[in-house]
């Protein structure tokens, strides 16, 4: 008995690495601490009613935000582990297989469990407020999406203490990711973790398309929508076209692994390049999914902090939509070296370069918006200003990579690594951070501390260039991605050491941001106006944080930036309060416990499939089916917020008389 438990445990838990034991201990301690706090302060009911079952887009957005910051921490630790290993030649800090696992989870987590949820967090926190809606189109589905992401991310992260992490790269190319190359459970964790959260992402895409199509305030025509809403719309369109491909691709890989299929194997007539085509047909649009909302954020911030309308609104919209279409015609540039022939490569090279045109138009529009504007250098604007040169360099190296013949030199080198980190950090991360600084007061009612934020800003920015500029050079010097160590004779030592220093600077920057959040909870400047930045769009017309129903009176829009125009018309005097007679009871969705249970059942099913425990997998799937039926039979899904409650809330905010 003891022996069998011991042998099970030694294969079930990841053993043998002191770093992992340290992680085990910290996971157990953190879990105990969380449970202790919940029991000691009797917070279970509060947690369940206010957060776990909520369908309020603002709370869901906040949960996305914090989950993604947690994942940024995990992915960042992975990055620092890698940089420590590469700091000097012949370092023995990580073993080769552990290094493989770390670079795999770093990539997967940063894209799918950090960037995506942070983006969805911003969608949720901002879009309904910005279009004058009281919630998203499908609040219940929104909660389902969040919990699918959450449990998918948990399943993926579990792999590093249970069963073993995936280690075939962030896109799990076969044949390495097939049973022949990766017989362990790591790839199963990869497939199920992403699959479960991917279904949630798809649902969010549908949700926001319908929200933007159908829930805009009266009078807000398409060409009067704020730029961020436009960017979310374009991004959601890419989501609904790209994510089904990911779902299928991962399912196909699982069929190969689980049922002995031969789609992508080396034997049985399998065709691994098919997988690589499919995964990039999702993967390339995916980078535009995450970057377009960042563009939208910059457009809002540039206009607000330059005190001008966005320059070239129509061309901005056109650029967003054309990028979302072009993004589907570039995927082959990830493997020009596949050898599909000069004609195919040229077509994809041209499509790739063509994306530089609308992107360039956007950069000029931001610059012209600032031109002769009254610029205020607050935190969101600082990140925006840092983004522009960073993204321009990243974009230029992207065009270099798009030159197919030259790509044979850059392919899989550190030049590529430097390029995509420059667009993803300089574009996406800077953008989302700018967005978080910008909308934080709206959601939480206080600003994030300026001084700590400036430290973080400069650490991130200096750290970024110190980390990644040397990597361009390392690429030219022949260093390829995914090498776990190198010899003294290669001459890569000094630049790698510099790069590692830069990575740690960014890490310290992140620590400052965590400190900044904690500090500002207590000491941050409170926002009593609802409009701390003197901004232009509807979300700033309501109190911070907004009441549960957002808008007591649905706003009517008759022009672009209509909140700003209203303010100008009344010479920036405070908005007059609304007479009580104008208020009404408000139709709102009810909270539901089904989404979290539904997603937990997916988690159980996924875990069962990972270890091929059929009893567990099928009971999980049965739970999924039952949850759906329970929801289908529930008819009591909404209610009216009583008029008295609306009046009381509005009066307390000084918005009704």
């Amino acid at each position, binding site marked *: 008995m003891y022996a069998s438990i011991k042998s099970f445990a030694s294969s079930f838990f990841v053993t043998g690495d002191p770093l992992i034991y340290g992680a085990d201990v910290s996971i157990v301690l953190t879990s105990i601490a969380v449970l202790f706090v919940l029991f000691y302060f009797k917070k279970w009911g509060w947690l369940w009613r206010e957060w776990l079952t909520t369908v309020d887009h603002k709370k869901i957005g906040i949960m996305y935000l914090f989950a993604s910051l947690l994942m940024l921490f995990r992915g960042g630790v992975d990055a620092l582990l890698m940089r420590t290993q590469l700091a000097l030649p012949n370092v023995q800090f990580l073993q080769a297989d552990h290094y493989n696992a770390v670079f795999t989870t770093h990539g997967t987590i940063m894209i799918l469990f950090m960037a995506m949820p942070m983006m969805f967090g911003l969608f949720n926190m901002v879009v309904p407020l910005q279009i004058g809606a009281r919630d998203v189109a499908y609040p219940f589905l929104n909660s389902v999406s969040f919990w699918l992401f959450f449990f998918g991310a948990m399943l993926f992260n579990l792999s590093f203490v249970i069963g073993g992490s995936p280690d075939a790269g962030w896109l799990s190319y076969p044949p390495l990711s097939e049973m022949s190359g990766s017989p362990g459970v790591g790839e199963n964790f990869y497939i199920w973790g992403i699959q479960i959260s991917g279904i949630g992402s*798809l649902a969010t895409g549908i949700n926001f398309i319908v929200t933007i199509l159908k829930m805009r305030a009266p009078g807000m025509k398409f060409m009067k929508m704020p730029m961020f809403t436009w960017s979310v719309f374009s991004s959601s369109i890419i989501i609904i076209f790209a994510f089904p491909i990911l779902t299928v691709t991962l399912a196909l890989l699982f069929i190969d692994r689980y049922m002995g299929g031969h789609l992508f194997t080396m034997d049985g007539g399998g065709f691994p390049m098919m997988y690589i085509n499919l995964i990039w047909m999702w993967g390339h649009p995916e980078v535009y999914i995450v970057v377009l909302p960042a563009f939208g954020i910059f457009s809002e911030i540039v206009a607000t902090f330059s005190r001008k309308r966005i320059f070239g609104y129509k061309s901005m919209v056109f650029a967003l939509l054309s990028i979302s279409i072009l993004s589907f015609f570039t995927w082959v540039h990830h493997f020009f070296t596949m050898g599909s022939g000069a004609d195919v490569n040229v077509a994809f090279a041209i499509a790739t370069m063509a994306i530089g045109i609308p992107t360039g138009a956007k950069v000029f529009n931001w610059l012209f918006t600032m031109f002769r504007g009254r610029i205020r250098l607050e935190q969101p604007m600082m990140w925006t200003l840092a983004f522009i040169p960073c993204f321009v360099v990243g974009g230029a190296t992207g065009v270099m990579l798009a030159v197919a013949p030259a790509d044979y030199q850059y392919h899989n080198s550190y030049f590529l690594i430097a390029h995509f980190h420059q667009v993803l950090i300089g574009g996406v991360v800077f953008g989302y951070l700018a967005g978080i600084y910008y909308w934080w007061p709206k959601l939480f009612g206080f600003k994030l501390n300026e001084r700590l934020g400036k430290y973080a800003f400069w650490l991130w920015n200096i750290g970024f260039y110190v980390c990644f500029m040397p990597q361009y050079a390392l690429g030219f010097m022949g260093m390829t991605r995914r090498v776990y160590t190198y010899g003294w004779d290669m001459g890569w030592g000094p630049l790698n050491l510099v790069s590692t220093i830069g990575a740690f600077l960014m890490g310290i920057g992140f620590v400052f941001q965590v400190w900044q959040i904690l500090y500002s909870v207590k000491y941050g400047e409170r926002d009593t106006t609802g409009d701390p930045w003197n901004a232009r769009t509807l979300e700033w017309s309501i109190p911070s944080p907004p009441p549960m129903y957002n808008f007591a009176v649905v706003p009517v829009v008759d022009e672009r930036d209509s909140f700003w125009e209203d303010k100008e018309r009344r010479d920036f005097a405070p908005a007059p309060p609304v007479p009580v007679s104008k208020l009404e009871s408000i139709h709102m969705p009810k909270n539901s416990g089904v989404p979290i249970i539904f997603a937990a059942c997916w988690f159980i099913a996924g875990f069962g499939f990972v270890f091929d425990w059929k009893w567990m997998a099928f009971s999980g799937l049965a739970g999924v*089916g039952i949850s759906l039926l329970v929801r289908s039979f529930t008819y009591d899904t909404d209610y009216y917020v009583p008029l008295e409650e609306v009046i009381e809330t509005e009066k307390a905010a000084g918005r009704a008389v």
Partner: protein
Amino acid sequence: MQHAIEHNHSKHAADSHDHGHHDQESMKVLGFWIFLVTDCLLFGTLFATYIVLKGHVDGGPTGKELFEIPGFVAETFILLTSSFTSGLAVLAMNKGKVNQLIGWLIVTAVLGASFVGLEINEFVNMVHEGATISTSAFLTAFFTLVGTHGLHVSVGLIWMIGLMVQLKMRGITSVTRRKITVISLYWHFLDVVWIFLFTIVYLMGVM
């Protein structure tokens, strides 16, 4: 202008009170249309994979040797008929006849179940002939594509049974009406996918 806004606003408020529920139901149908777009892409990706791997039989059996014409023709007629009867169900719903509606849904579900039965039978026969999912890339792609469609039909059956119970309990309301509209869209969609399966997999397979 301020006056105009107020006028618009009060009009809108009245609308949202009267049609609040109705708007929500039509919005859900729109969302389902978009879901069908994504499902289309899902099948499109599977079709692409199948077409690429069709010739990769690795010395194993080909479609021409495996596909039984009477079997897939029967499946086709049964599924097309079920699409027709689901259309009749919607017509009954529009006339407000709940029992007739449930009756046509039962016919649809029975036809759907026979379709799934025939397909399982086809798969079992193929496996007995030694053509399994792990025989060749072609067969993996075949079982995945056709099986995904069959899985969709099976899920639709459970869903449809759930809706019949709800119709019995609640009759035709704006909510059940929307639910029936949605499942009939789903059912027709599966029929359209089957037309492509019939053509690309079976007809082109036996040619």
